[in-house]
């Protein structure tokens, strides 16, 4: 009867072997040989029909496995008298879901514990993924957003940004093939008069006419602005931001066509700009206006350029093309700058980026602890469900079925845990947002997007697989089966080492988090105690901008500044007032270093020099000690007059023999020299964590004369108390004026430490949760071990073992895996900690204090977790125990 030659292909045979496992045991045991022969026979039959025989044969086998096999199972079950409702895999799984739900509902405390444990891990994971997604992974939310970036003009050495000229902008727009358009925007403010009070200061975005079309954004109501609004003579129109529209205008659709008075001009509202269409990490603007045609570039103000790379183009190519297009354009102020297309996350501080990724690893570790803990709980419970499992196995439940049962249970717990976790992340996100570094907007909207939910589900899936598979495969081993169906006598068995391994894993992961938290906190403390070199605690800083419409001449401006200075000085509690072109911690940066004339230039301290301007009383107000010479002009000067003198810092002066006061200094590449009139102490010019010692110099300033100035006010007490009065005094001089910004020295410091505080807090939270979860894990494992060893303990006590020995025995049992976990965790931390370096400050990744504290804390927690079951072991009544066995 055999026609055709040769055996079936190996793949087909392998498939048939896999599919055979779907048939019931009776069939497998009785008909395995027939099945194999049938496979070969089918192959031969199909071979005679021509090409594609393997596929056709495989299809027959597959159809048979999914239709005939379930029927055979039903028949087999009916023969054994066991009711099986549903033979297909879907029906079986649904049955397992019902069984699982009933089983979990019967043990609400256990279920709640596992759900909370998993929820903590999954929630933290989802929450942090939301943050990562918002700031690192998600491109700008526009069409082609993943290719969008910002064109910047940078000093190559320092990264300082500059703005283009109109000519350059047009050259780029016309000539750049690597970019799909360049649109421009600037941030400004507008004043809206308010009855009975100072005017309302609104944030205003000035945009190029083509921006809305470029981004593909449509107005929520009304229309967006376009080229028609930028033509000369076009009526002044404005868009209102959606957040402002909601907050102040009650989302009234009738806002379209309404008129507003802004900066003394009446404008008409054309529409509402949607809140989702934010251009960068700043908050959505209150207002949006279009820049008149031909005036898009304004080198005196920071102009931001948004662009989209052409498909397939990388930023480096675009940079090169933009640089090439700059050749020959007259732009003196841009001489030293080079263009660069920066993708959005390049604007985040490196410490924050590192911190985010570190927190991500921390979250994965926490999730690991949670999953391991949940697995351990499920395993322990599976062992105590011995009777039920034993019955199932005896009734012929296949290993696959058992695995499915555990997977379903694990999956149910993980799904509920994921739901709880997402809720936790939402709540936690709101709390974190309140604490997050000030420049980052509301994090709650980061949590509820599809990707975050997917991340939570992915974590839940991993948890399901591990939590389900580990107990299931463990229980299928013959030795364990004997245990489940046996007398429960205490013997050496495989269950204990696995449970201990899980405890070790939890403790190790928790230690990594705890050390990370310790390092974070110590960095934070180190940063907080840094001496900035000036008296930051008692400073208030106000910036005021004079509208050119009402302060057109130098005289008008100088008169205002003089009056404002006097007003501020007269506020009770104010000890001194000065002005500067830069705020504290934000000096300007210039490439190269000035050199004392007539001396061999010493090796430069750094690639560039920090610079600030210093008006009358500057050093006194700032609290910067004058070490030599003077910090003021020698005689009276008129505001606006060029003083032509400078003061240098100690680091600069020390490198020259003798005193530098009275010597002339020249700047590389620039004509002329400037005399040094004083030497002052070094300060932290660019941030609290800026420990690099650079040359710093101050150009003496004759006093405020421009249209934008920064007041620095020294106060006797808390500077925050002076801010309100300061605002009032300014508005008192000119009711239409409101300070552009007002902050205090302590607030600046808080801003400086915000990133690290955020990171330290995150790691601290994760470390605490991990500690709690790991402790619970230790407790659970030890409690189970004590329970299993009742008989043994009973025997020991009956034989006269004292309480001390019993307790030591239990402690030894429980603490051994903890101790191993501490060692493993210590090694793991040493490997991972160096990645934290960028986010640390004055603390090394191997800081012994952090390690010691974490080990002590976890060790103590582990010990305490062992003590409770140990004490319970003491209460074992030996007679009763032995009798019941």
């Amino acid at each position: 009867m055999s026609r055709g030659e040769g055996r079936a292909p190996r793949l087909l045979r392998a498939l048939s072997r896999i599919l055979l496992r779907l048939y019931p045991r009776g069939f497998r045991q009785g008909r395995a040989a027939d099945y194999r022969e049938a496979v070969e026979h089918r192959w031969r039959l199909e071979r005679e029909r021509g090409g594609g025989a393997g596929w056709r044969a495989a299809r027959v086998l597959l159809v048979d496995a999914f239709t005939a096999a379930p029927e055979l199972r039903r028949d087999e079950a009916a023969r054994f008298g066991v009711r099986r409702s549903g033979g297909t895999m879907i029906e079986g799984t649904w049955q397992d879901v019902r069984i699982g739900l009933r089983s979990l509902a019967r043990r609400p405390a256990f279920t709640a514990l596992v759900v909370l444990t998993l929820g903590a891990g999954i929630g933290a994971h989802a929450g942090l993924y939301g943050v990562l997604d918002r700031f690192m992974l998600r491109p700008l939310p526009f069409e082609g957003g993943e290719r969008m970036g910002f064109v910047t003009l940078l000093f190559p050495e320092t990264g300082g940004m500059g703005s283009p000229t109109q000519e350059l902008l047009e050259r780029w727009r016309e000539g750049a093939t690597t970019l799909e358009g360049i649109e421009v925007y600037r941030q400004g403010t507008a004043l809206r008069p308010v009855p009975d009070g100072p005017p309302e200061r609104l944030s205003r975005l000035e945009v190029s006419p083509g921006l809305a079309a470029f981004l593909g954004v449509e107005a929520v109501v009304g229309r967006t602005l376009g080229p028609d609004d930028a033509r000369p003579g076009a009526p002044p129109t404005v868009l209102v931001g959606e957040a402002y529209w909601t907050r102040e205008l009650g989302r009234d659709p009738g806002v379209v066509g309404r008129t507003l008075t802004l900066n003394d001009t009446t404008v008409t509202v054309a529409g509402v700009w949607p809140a989702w269409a934010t251009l960068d990490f700043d908050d959505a603007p209150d207002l949006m206006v279009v820049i008149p045609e031909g005036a898009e570039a304004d080198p005196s103000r920071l102009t931001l350029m948004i662009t989209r790379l052409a498909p397939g183009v990388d930023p480096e190519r675009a940079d090169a093309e933009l640089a090439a297009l700059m050749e020959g354009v007259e732009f003196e102020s841009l001489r030293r700058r080079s263009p660069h297309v920066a993708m959005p996350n390049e604007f985040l501080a490196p410490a924050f980026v590192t911190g985010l990724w570190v927190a991500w690893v921390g979250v994965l570790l926490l999730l690991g602890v949670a999953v391991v803990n949940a697995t351990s709980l499920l395993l322990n419970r599976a062992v105590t469900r011995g009777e039920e499992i034993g019955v199932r196995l005896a009734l012929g439940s296949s290993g696959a079925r058992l695995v499915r049962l555990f997977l379903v249970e694990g999956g149910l717990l993980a799904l509920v845990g994921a739901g709880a976790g997402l809720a936790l992340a939402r709540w936690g996100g709101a709390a974190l947002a309140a604490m997050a570094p000030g420049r980052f907007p509301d994090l709650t909207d980061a949590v509820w997007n599809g990707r975050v939910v997917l991340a939570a589900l992915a974590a839940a899936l991993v948890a399901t697989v591990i939590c389900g598979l580990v107990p299931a495969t463990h229980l299928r081993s013959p030795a364990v089966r004997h245990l489940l169906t046996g007398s429960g006598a205490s013997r050496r068995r495989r269950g204990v080492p696995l449970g201990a391994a899980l405890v070790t894993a939890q403790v190790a992961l928790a230690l990594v988090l705890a050390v990370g938290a310790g390092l974070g906190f110590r960095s934070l403390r180190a940063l907080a105690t840094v001496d900035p070199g000036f008296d930051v605690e008692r400073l208030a800083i106000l910036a005021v901008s004079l509208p050119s419409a009402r302060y057109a001449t130098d005289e008008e401006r100088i008169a205002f500044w003089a009056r404002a200075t006097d007003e501020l000085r007269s506020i009770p509690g104010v000890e001194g007032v000065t002005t500067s072109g830069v705020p504290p911690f934000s000096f300007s940066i210039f490439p190269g270093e000035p050199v004392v004339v007539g001396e061999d230039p010493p090796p430069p301290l750094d690639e560039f020099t920090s610079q600030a301007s210093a008006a009358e009383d500057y050093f006194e107000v700032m609290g910067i000690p004058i070490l030599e010479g003077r910090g003021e002009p020698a005689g009276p000067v008129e505001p606006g007059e060029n003083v032509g003198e400078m003061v240098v810092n100690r680091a600069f002066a020390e490198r020259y023999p003798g005193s530098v006061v009275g010597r002339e200094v020249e700047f590389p590449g620039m004509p002329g020299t400037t005399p040094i009139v004083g030497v002052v102490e070094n300060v932290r010019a660019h941030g609290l964590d800026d420990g690099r010692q650079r040359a710093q110099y101050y150009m003496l300033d004759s006093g405020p004369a421009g249209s934008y100035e920064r007041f620095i006010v020294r106060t006797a007490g808390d500077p925050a108390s002076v801010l309100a009065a300061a605002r009032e005094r300014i508005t008192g001089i000119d009711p239409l004026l409101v300070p552009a910004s007002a902050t205090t020295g302590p607030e600046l410091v808080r801003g400086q430490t915000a990133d690290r505080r955020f990171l330290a807090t995150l790691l601290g939270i994760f470390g605490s949760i991990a500690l709690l979860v790991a402790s619970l894990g230790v407790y659970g494992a030890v409690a189970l071990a004590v329970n299993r060893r009742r008989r043994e303990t009973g025997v020991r006590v009956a034989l006269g073992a004292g309480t001390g020995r019993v307790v030591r025995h239990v402690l030894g049992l429980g603490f051994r895996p903890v101790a191993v976990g501490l060692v493993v965790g210590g090694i793991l931390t040493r490997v991972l900690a160096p990645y934290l370096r960028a986010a640390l400050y004055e603390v090394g990744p191997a800081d012994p204090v952090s390690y010691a504290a974490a080990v002590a804390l976890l060790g103590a927690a582990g010990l305490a977790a062992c003590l409770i079951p140990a004490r319970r072991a003491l209460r074992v009544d030996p007679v009763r125990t032995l009798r019941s066995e």
Partner: protein
Amino acid sequence: MGDGSLTRPAFLILLALSDRPRHGLGIVEEVDTRTDGAEKLGPGSLYGTLKRLATDGLVRETDEAPDPTDDDPRRRYYRLTETGRDALRAEAAHLRTLVEVAVGKHVLEAEA
């Protein structure tokens, strides 16, 4: 099968056995050949149905002389019982009636 109608695999197996006893793979080959590959019995379908048919008394195993060309004396052979033949006939007649309805409604063309 409890309600009197035959499943497709059952019908095919009974049909294959209607002219002479066969073993399992012989049944598969007969069905495959007669329908030109349109009907293919998988091993689970074959043996499961055979078992049910045997339980219901429609087929039985036989000791009759195997196919002289068959070189494996271990093969189990099956034959149709009278009950099985009756059931087969009834089902075939039923199917013919259905075909006549289909022809009457011009779903199928009448055979020439």
